[in-house]
């Protein structure tokens, strides 16, 4: 795994500077749908220019390079301790090179040591799989969109949301309404129905590993995803909350088992600057292929 650190630095660079094609296509489609001459259209044009400029200059799409979340799938004998040590070194190196902002603050002292490494940063989720390859996916999620995430406990009397799919729909749409333009829309939702307070949010974020144009294999959830996007886009919140046609580019929803006493709906909001990439590595840690 001699090449692992340089591969992870390259993964961080590409994730920070280049928007995945499925996201870019969705943004271009929303630009075509926006009324000409509006400030919403103008915002989307700036966004499109920004995507091109970031790629060309190999610099961050957004200055908030976000929470650094790795998802690693590897064979049974993958040395997770070494991997984590190398990932931390890669994050420090990528920060020195300007692919990441000095973005990690000690919550007790307020000190930002400029490395992006500390308790909880980066976050690394390991999974074993029955293949010799190592796949590393990375999500960089900025603070503006993280702050508009929400977790609801059903029933919710105020929203008249019961413990059923219609109740889930009501609270998800409420989260979109509350977010307005503060999460840098047009956004993408990751939602988990069920789970506990921690796993609910965790699974909601894992939905961002899906492609925007994929379909949910569970018919009820697929229908709910389509409905949430269509209904949200009738609210007129629009890009940046300027008013307009596109409030959401996508909604990805999963379900996890819950306790009889609990019914959480956990909603993570991803900004348009949806930074997600992945690599498949060979045994030396070199990049074999890109996953998105």
């Amino acid at each position, binding site marked *: 795994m001699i090449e692992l650190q340089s591969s992870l630095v390259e993964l961080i660079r590409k994730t920070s500077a280049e928007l995945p094609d499925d996201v870019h296509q969705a943004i271009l489609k929303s630009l075509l749908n926006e009324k000409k001459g509006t400030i919403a259209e103008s915002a989307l044009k700036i966004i499109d220019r920004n995507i091109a400029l970031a790629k060309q200059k190999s610099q961050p799409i957004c200055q908030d390079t976000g929470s650094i979340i790795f998802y690693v799938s590897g064979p049974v004998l993958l040395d997770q301790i070494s991997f984590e040590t190398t990932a931390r070194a890669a994050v420090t190196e990528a920060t020195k090179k300007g692919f990441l902002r*000095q973005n990690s603050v000690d919550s007790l002292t307020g000190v*930002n040591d400029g490395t992006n490494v500390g308790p909880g940063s980066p976050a690394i989720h390991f999974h074993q799989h029955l293949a010799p390859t190592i796949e590393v996916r990375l999500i960089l999620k900025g603070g503006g969109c993280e702050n508009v995430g929400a977790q609801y406990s059903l029933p919710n009397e105020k929203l008249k949301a019961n413990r059923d799919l219609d109740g889930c729909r009501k609270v998800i749409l409420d989260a979109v*309404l509350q977010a307005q333009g503060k999460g840098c829309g047009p956004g993408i939702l990751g939602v988990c129905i069920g789970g506990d307070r921690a796993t609910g949010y965790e699974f909601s974020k894992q939905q961002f590993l899906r492609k925007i144009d994929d379909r949910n294999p569970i018919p009820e959830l697929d229908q709910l995803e389509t409905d949430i996007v269509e209904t949200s886009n009738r609210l007129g919140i629009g890009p940046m909350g300027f008013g307009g046609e596109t409030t959401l580019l996508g909604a990805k929803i999963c379900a996890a088992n819950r306790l009889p006493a609990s019914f959480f709906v956990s909603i993570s909001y991803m900004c348009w600057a949806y930074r997600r990439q992945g690599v498949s590595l060979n045994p030396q840690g070199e990049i074999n292929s890109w996953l998105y």
Partner: protein
Amino acid sequence: MIHLTIPFTEEKIRALKVGDAVEISGPIFTGRDVVHKYLHEGGTLPSEVNLRDGIIYHCGPVVMKDPTGQWRVTAAGPTTSIREEPYQGQIIKDFGLRGVIGKGGMGDRTLEACKSAGCVYFHAVGGAAQVLAECITSVKSVHFLKEFGSPEAIWELTVERFPVVVTMDSHSQSLHREVLATSTAALAKSL
């Protein structure tokens, strides 16, 4: 497109209306969460940081030192402004600000301060860190770098044709309040 150069006059700021697209040129200062809390608690500014008739930009940029030792901004979009709502109105009044640049809009207390003091809220496109960094022609100084850390420091930047939209003006109009009202009504019909 309206072009404005800093320092602003009250007259020029009061002429702006919600929805106006503006390009700004001149010196601006970044200031976000730590700076707002610090100023609100009575913290003082070095004499070089003169906010009067100028702008505070809610931004934590990525800034690199080039081989000659000069600072260079490589990414600089706005951060979410609503977090500064507890402090912003007072700071507008105390420091004579004519403009705040950020994203996502602010609340009633800031809107009231914009009206009474002659200030507007300029919305930059969130996430557009490269387009906006291209409009920054130089870094003149940095303050509180060690104490607050790079994203929270006060960076004095010179900007050239920096694109923004007025979303809160000095006549009590707010696009954010308007969109919240229309979208709340639209959602009530969809449930």
